[in-house]
């Protein structure tokens, strides 16, 4: 892909390097713009973990999750994912940092984070942009698909990496 796309583009007479730079510039801006969001959320989540609050929350659901053979550590991620993109990204990072990217928890967290978008944010931006105030069943559909995605991510990871 790294070779094919520029080759095809050159064939279509696109100035490949200059085009690359203009896109890259945007990527740089995006990565820099994330910093405040990520710092804010990482602080909160790192505190949440260090204080022992996370363990308390996880231990509440431990029996159910143990019974289902699911690591309870990923549960807060499932709750955060539809609500805040930066928050769930920070949480995923925290899990990857603590348990390692190649652990089962790290893999499951990566898959959950990558597989759906932040429902609440998308709803606010898209409907807000055109002045829709009554979203009817859209929120329910979004949250339902988040739940399905969460369960699917866990099951697929357990199957593939288990």
């Amino acid at each position, binding site marked *: 892909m790294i070779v094919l796309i520029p080759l095809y583009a050159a064939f279509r007479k696109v100035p490949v390097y200059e085009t690359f*730079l203009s896109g890259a510039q945007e990527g*740089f801006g995006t990565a820099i713009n994330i910093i405040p969001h*990520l710092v804010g959320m990482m602080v909160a*989540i790192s505190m949440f973990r260090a204080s022992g609050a996370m363990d308390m929350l996880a231990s509440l659901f431990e029996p159910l999750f143990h019974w289902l053979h699911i690591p309870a550590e990923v549960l807060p991620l499932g709750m955060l994912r539809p609500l805040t993109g930066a928050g769930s990204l920070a949480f995923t990072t925290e899990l990857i940092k603590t348990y390692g990217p190649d652990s089962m928890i790290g893999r499951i967290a990566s898959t959950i984070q990558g597989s759906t978008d932040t429902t609440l944010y998308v709803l606010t931006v898209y409907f807000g*942009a055109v002045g*829709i105030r009554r979203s009817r069943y859209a929120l329910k559909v979004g949250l339902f698909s988040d739940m399905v995605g969460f369960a699917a991510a866990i099951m697929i990871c357990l199957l593939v990496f288990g």
Partner: protein
Amino acid sequence: MVNWIWLFFIVASFIAAAVTGRMEALTEAAFDGAKSGVTVSFGLISVMVFWLGLMRIAEDARLLDRMAVLLQPVVRFLFPDVPRNHPALGYIMSNMSANILGLGNAATPMGIKAMQELQKLNPDKETASAAMCTLLALNTSSITLVPTTLIAIRMTYSSAHPAEIVGTTLAATLIATAAAIAADRWYRHRSGKPPQWKDIGGGSGGAGASGKHGGAGGYAAIANNTPGSGKGEAVV
């Protein structure tokens, strides 16, 4: 909403730390968290810069438009109540292809343009139409080919196989999207017969020329101006 979540984390941490006597660790964790926030963002730079650069080339070579054409039958199936030649469909296709490639910054403005076009067909301007709900469902669960952000974070924490989650993510995202579409269809049917759009000639004629195919020229321009947030970027 985000404000409450953030406050909840901090207050709950404070209370839990008071109970368990980990006050010192709490302060340390706050600064440690800030530090990893920056570390992770810096880890993201390399992948984001490279990937978005590559994707801009794909965009300028009209690869996105080609993909949009492939999506045409899918979009027709998903939006039966939007007239065939309506500009909204073009924007929807562009929005979907940008999402698939993980170009959140390009997907959001395209999605908003599509919403604006759908709004023109909407009889009640304050209530979402069925087509709008479907577009939203597609975006909340959007299919992503390459989860670049996650790969970057896994690289930062020295994963042996940073990209091994591509397959599992794709499978999970497909299932989530299928669920979203199914639920959307179910609600659509439950809420009765979709309203028929009869009056489409006048309103959409002018817009058709500029936006019919989600035009590549306008596409790049809008993408540059609008800060967006997609799955890849995950900024809220």
